């Protein structure tokens, strides 16, 4: 149990640092950045204290906001996907989730990809609509959501594949 807590803490800080120091400097094609810090929310153990999990997600988003001077947009998006996660888990993994048997290292690739995709899309759509904050620029919101999502999903999937081998 203790090792799990310290593992999550290390993951929290590593992801924050990677996000603000590397991923936000990429600016691919001018404005496309991956938001890989949501891996913390994606990979958080499914058997958890939900209130604590939502609070941690809020803290994660707020830390990112603090670094990026973006008000509360990352906090809002993170809290939302943390709250919506059980619904997505159920739709992606079905019975496996009901029995608390979801282990992110062992699940099959297809359902993992759907799960990551939906979580990322929801996160990015909230993030960018709050960032741009104007209905007249809705096309820009969708454009940013689409391109950044592709980048995020690709990176998150790669990272989960690369690091799942070691922990086996």
């Amino acid at each position, binding site marked *: 149990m203790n090792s799990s807590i310290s593992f999550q803490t290390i993951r929290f800080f590593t992801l924050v640092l990677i996000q603000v120091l590397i991923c936000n400097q990429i600016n691919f094609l001018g404005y496309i950045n991956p938001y890989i810090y949501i891996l913390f929310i994606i990979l958080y153990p499914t058997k958890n204290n939900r209130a604590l999990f939502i609070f941690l997600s809020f803290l994660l988003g707020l830390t990112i906001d603090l670094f990026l001077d973006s008000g509360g947009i990352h906090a809002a998006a993170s*809290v939302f996907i943390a709250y919506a996660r059980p619904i997505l888990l159920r739709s992606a993994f079905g019975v496996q989730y009901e029995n608390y048997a979801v282990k992110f290292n062992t699940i099959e690739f297809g359902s993992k990809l759907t799960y990551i995709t939906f979580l990322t899309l929801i996160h990015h759509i909230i993030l960018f609509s709050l960032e741009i904050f104007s209905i007249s620029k809705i096309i820009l919101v969708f454009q940013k959501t689409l391109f950044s999502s592709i980048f995020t999903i690709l990176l998150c999937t790669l990272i989960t594949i690369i690091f799942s081998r070691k922990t086996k």
Partner: protein
Amino acid sequence: MQQIINFIIRNKTFLLFLLLFSVSILFTIQSHSYHKSKFINSANFLTGGVYNTVNNISVYFDLKSQNQILSEENNRLKSLLYNSENKNDSTYIDSVSFNAQYRFTSANIIRNSYTAADNILLVNKGKNDSIKQDFGVITSKGILGIINETSNNYATVISILNTTNSISAKLKKTNHFGSLTWNAKDPSIAQLVDIAKIARIEIGDTIVTSGLSSIFPKNIPVGTVEEFKLDDAENYYEIEVKLFNDMTSVEHVYIIENIDAKEITNLLNPN
């Protein structure tokens, strides 16, 4: 009473979610109104310190190009100095000259940002260097932004690439003025709106600051006219301005303090 407590216990996750979500929305709304982002800003010792450490390393990677820019500026200033015919109307008065209206402080950008809709930069000067809110920030090539929050050693700058920002600028040729805004699309193009229809504009005209706002001196270069059209009501021009500054690569900046700013605001708002 019992039922209320039961309700709270039953829905505690949902209520927590609602609380945290509304707190973040509140922060977001605050950050969208000018000069209101009080709590969440990167000008504190933790984030400022992290960015400073990283910047100390990354600054080496483009030393060459930044030196090039600085030497170009030196070149320009030298030619200005030796070719000037005792013009007294120049606003680029150095702080050493007596009775100067503007005081310049040089600083380094330690965090740049140009991809978001509301871009905020971080510089390594703060209250200890007597930097305060509403000081202007320029580079050798042109205008950059306005100081927003300050901590002891760091300050955040609202970039001109920020949808909440609006700076008074004018056409150099005809002196018609308008406000410089940004539509969040291209980091090399800003928009100049509210230029009266009567103005004669041509593509390639230079845009400079108007000096009407007490933040920036007159005639700081902004950019050139790339494209212009009348707005929907056909009363004002909307001009696409190609910025002189490459906003994606800024390093050395100057912070401008208008020493008379207080006097001017007092005069304009007697209360």
